[in-house]
């Protein structure tokens, strides 16, 4: 597994995709940090800067994790590299987990670099920085990358070609990031009032983007943005049950797609 992870990291470090992602993410994070700090708001609580950074995270990290992960795996399948690896005396577990680890460490390094650059800008621009909050925010970004890389592996193993992987990734991203909230809003109009809160609660857990968004806002003490009607939900989500379920949901969203990828790999990648 170690050799496969290392090889995957080497491939990632030499890929234009990761370099492009790194450049885009870092420059946007630095720009948000610089512009958002013009009033000296700093990185403390839910303000213009943290909201912008959160939006960048929720838009970019899923998109790029999905694209990078799915294109690499489907590409390797198309080029027969994955099939060749599976003829080696290594378990499919080691192959898939090694690839996942390599992808994850590469994306994690890019995120760390981006956050580091943004932190430096905030520091030199004289804004206040809550270190614990920043670390929490950074952890949420890593969780988001972990979840979407796992989904990307699943897409990569399902897709027959790179183009198919690209298409599926874009559809999944658009659904989870762009359309999901409109669908939920639309559904809420047809539901009875007593079913609204349970439906919204479940909808948060069914979409990793919403899961991270809600937890990030709560961590930044920004629960007021949800409005008075969702007060009960924010209290529940911020309590220990909510937090435990959040951790469990993140774990499930990360583990289940990887498990499915291993299952498909065991079944035979060239069966299709």
């Amino acid at each position: 597994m170690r050799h496969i992870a290392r090889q995957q990291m080497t491939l990632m470090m030499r890929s234009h995709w990761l370099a492009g992602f790194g450049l885009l993410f870092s420059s946007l994070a630095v720009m948000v940090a610089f512009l958002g700090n013009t009033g000296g708001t700093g990185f403390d609580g839910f303000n213009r800067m943290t909201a912008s950074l959160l939006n960048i995270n929720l838009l970019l990290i899923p998109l790029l994790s999905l694209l990078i992960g799915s294109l690499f795996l489907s590409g390797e399948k198309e080029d027969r590299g994955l099939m060749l690896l599976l003829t080696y005396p290594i378990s499919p577990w080691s192959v898939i987990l090694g690839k996942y680890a390599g992808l994850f460490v590469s994306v994690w390094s890019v995120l760390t670099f981006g956050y580091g650059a943004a932190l430096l800008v905030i520091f030199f621009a004289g804004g206040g920085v809550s270190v614990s909050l920043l670390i929490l925010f950074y952890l949420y970004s890593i969780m988001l990358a972990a979840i979407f890389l796992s989904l990307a592996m699943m897409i990569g193993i399902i897709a027959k070609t790179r183009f198919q992987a690209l298409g599926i990734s874009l559809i999944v991203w658009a659904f989870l990031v762009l359309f999901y909230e409109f669908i939920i809003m639309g559904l809420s109009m047809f539901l009875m009032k007593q079913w609204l809160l349970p439906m919204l609660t479940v909808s948060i857990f069914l979409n990793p983007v919403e899961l991270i968004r809600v937890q990030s806002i709560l961590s930044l003490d920004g629960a007021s943005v949800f409005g008075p009607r969702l007060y009960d939900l924010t209290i529940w989500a911020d309590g220990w049950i909510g937090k435990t379920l959040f951790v469990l949901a993140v774990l499930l969203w990360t583990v289940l797609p990887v498990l499915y990828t291993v299952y498909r790999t065991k079944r035979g990648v060239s069966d299709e």
Partner: protein
Amino acid sequence: MNSIEWIRIEGLAKHYSETKKITDINLTINKPEIFALCGGNGAGKSTLIKMLTGMMKPTAGKILMDGKVIDPQKQGFKKLFSYMPDEMLFPRQLTGLEVLTFFARLRGISDEKVMEALKQVGLFEVRNMQIKQYSKGMQQRLSLAQALLPDVPLRILDEPTNGLDPLWVFRFKEIIQEEKKQGRTILFTTHILSLVEELADRAAFMQEGQLQYCDSVTSLVENNGVYTPLEKVFFH
């Protein structure tokens, strides 16, 4: 060197659809020998190889080794063979040396053996060149080097001479004959019949997912008339 029966394939089948299927494949592979699996495009050679290497699960049938049923997906069997895929594309951003070193590490093979394999396929001088600068033939030779790396009793090569120039086809034949002298079994697929006549001890012919003939190359040629080339068997 006398060869003995080693691997037996019994009733192996893979069913995709009514028009696309492989049915009832029965054949034996001896140790040591050079065994050629022949057939036109879409005859089912690569599918049979995929089932044998554990990349694909058969719909029916079994594979026996030394009389015992084996599961090709288990690591125990995978330790016994190396595989060269058909038209393998290595990551373009890596060098030939990096690619081969990676595959060597997966089997715990030393760097000296990597250099030896690179020399064997004539890529030692260009080992630090990126794959994107390699020609198709060079990539094919790198793929062959990857299959020659481990000290295993069986080498399975899928269309190994594709993209090779005449010089390297000649070198390939030398390498394979040397491998047999070392007691190995080489199973290769091809549609180049002259290669089969020159190299293989036995050959099997597949057509539309079915095994048509399986015999020694000498018998196949003789049964179809003295000095009749294998083309006759193929077209029959």
